[in-house]
Structure formats: C-alpha cells, structure tokens
C-alpha cells in the first residue's frame, strides 16, 4: 500500500505562508482590477476586462492545527528534555503530515514552541495525548467532509497515524510515572 503522494496543489498558486497567515494582497486599484487585453498603439482601443475580486481563501484549518501540534511537541521537548526520544519521532511524523497538507519548509521553520501548561512531565504527556485525540478526530472529520479523493486518502492516513500516537504516548507516560 502506498503512502499519500507528494502534497496537494497549492491553494490557487498562493504561497502557503500567506494562506496560513490569512494575509492576502488586495488589488491596489480597489475592488475591481482592470486588465488590458491588448496594448499596441496602432491597435483598436483595448477592451477592458473586469476581473471580480476573489474572496480571500480561508486559512487551511487542518494545516494550522497540524503546525500547532508540532509547536506543542517542540515546547514540551524544550521543557522536558528527558522525553526527547519518542516525542521527537512523533513530532517528525507531524512534520510529514504538515508537508502532505501543503506546508513549506519555511512554514515548518517558523513554528514557535508552545510551552506545556503542566506541572510535571507526566501532565505534559497527558496534554499531548489530549491534543492527539482531538487531532485524530479533526482529521477524520476533515476527511469525511472533503470531496477530493486524494485528500480524503491522505487525511485518513493522518487521522490513523495520530490515533496511533495515543497508545504510544500512554507508554511514554507510563515510563515517566514509573
């Protein structure tokens, strides 16, 4: 069985970073931009074509959530370095998920660690387990709602992977609390 392909089409050719930030360049000339169909001086007057402004695309929530998940792992690893081994492996898997969802290396490099709000390493892992459960559920819902077969397939793989992180993290937590 082959894993999903090499990422999805970029959203309307925009940089992923721009989509993530929800920042769009509004045409400088206002709500409607005018493009000229012809420019030669000997030619008839150019025909004006009105281009309706397109609505700004919604940020890809699935990708934003995936990047936040990576930030949570990075933050936990920074505070609890004794958990580095397994958590780094899982964080790398989330990076692979994010790439599959369209993240660029620049996006991944820009992730800010999210410090765990937990009193102990055990609690920090418990928080990650909750995040993974939510992520698995959200990816499953995204797969259910998608109309693109390749995206459904990729999201199903990702939902399965994230679901498998739950028992793996429980093992990590057992080791911490032992």
């Amino acid at each position: 069985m082959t894993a999903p392909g090499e990422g999805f089409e970029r959203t309307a050719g925009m940089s992923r970073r721009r989509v993530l930030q929800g920042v769009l360049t509004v045409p400088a000339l206002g709500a409607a931009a005018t493009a000229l169909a012809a420019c030669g001086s000997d030619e008839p007057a150019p025909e004006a074509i009105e281009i309706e402004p397109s609505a700004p695309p919604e940020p890809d929530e699935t990708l934003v959530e995936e990047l936040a998940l990576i930030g949570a792992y990075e933050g936990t690893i920074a505070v609890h370095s004794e958990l580095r081994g397994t958590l780094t492996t899982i964080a790398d898997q989330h990076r692979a998920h994010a790439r599959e969802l369209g993240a660029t290396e620049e996006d991944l490099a820009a992730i800010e660690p999210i410090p765990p709000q937990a009193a102990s390493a055990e609690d920090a892992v418990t928080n990650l387990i909750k995040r993974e459960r939510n992520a698995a559920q959200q990816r499953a819902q995204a797969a259910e709602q998608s109309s693109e077969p390749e995206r459904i397939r990729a999201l199903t793989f990702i939902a399965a992977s994230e679901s498998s992180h739950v028992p793996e993290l429980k093992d990590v937590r057992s080791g911490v609390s032992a």
Partner: protein
Amino acid sequence: MTYTDAAAVSAIVRAIEAEQNYVYAVGLAGAFLKGAGRRRAANQLAEHRARIQANSVLIDSSAVPDTPPGFQPPTPITNAASARSALASLNNALVGAYADVASTTEGTDRSEAIARAQASARDAITWGAASQAFPT
C-alpha cells in the same frame, strides 16, 4: 448503499481480502499467544469477521471474494514475538486498505472506513509496532 463504481468496488474487495488474511493470521497467532495477548487476539477475530460482513454488503454479492483456504503471513509466525510482529504489520496494511475505501465511498461508509483505519493503526501499536506518519 451498494457501490458499483469500479474504484470503490476494487478498494472494498481489497479491504475484504486484507481482513480475510488478518482473520487467518490472528487465528494462527493466537496459538502462540498467552494471557492478555491471546484474549486480544480472540476479540479481534470476532471484530475483523464483523468487518468482513460489513464490507461485503457494500458491493454486489458476486464481487465478494471467497475466503481463501490459507494465507502466507508477510513474516512466518513461529512464536509469540513473530505472532505480535505479524499482527502489527497486517494492522498497518489495513490502514492503507481503509484509506482507499474512505477515498472511494461516502457518508457513513466513509466514516466507518476512517474509524477502521484509526483502530487498525492503534492495534498495530498495541501489537508492538512503532507509529508511522503514514502507516503501511
């Protein structure tokens, strides 16, 4: 719903075949497992047989593959460790089979395929596999 689209039928048939192989392998593995492992194997036998039934009603009965007389696991099952390893590997293979089913079905059929992919990925961990970004 009965799917007639070739891609959906093909994906569902592959899932049924993967489940038939799993049922055979888990029966074989059960002979080498003890305690909680054997109980888990017994529970999975029933669960995966039910999956075969559930998948079979999604396509015309003429397309449902017959149960093969045997199955050669990807790695020989000769003791408890190899039994666990084989079941972990076969569970990961089921993830891919159900990802294909999910991508060619709709509604609750898709939801169930996704849920089965997730359950199989978790079961792979329970049988001793390490997690993967794209379980295969």
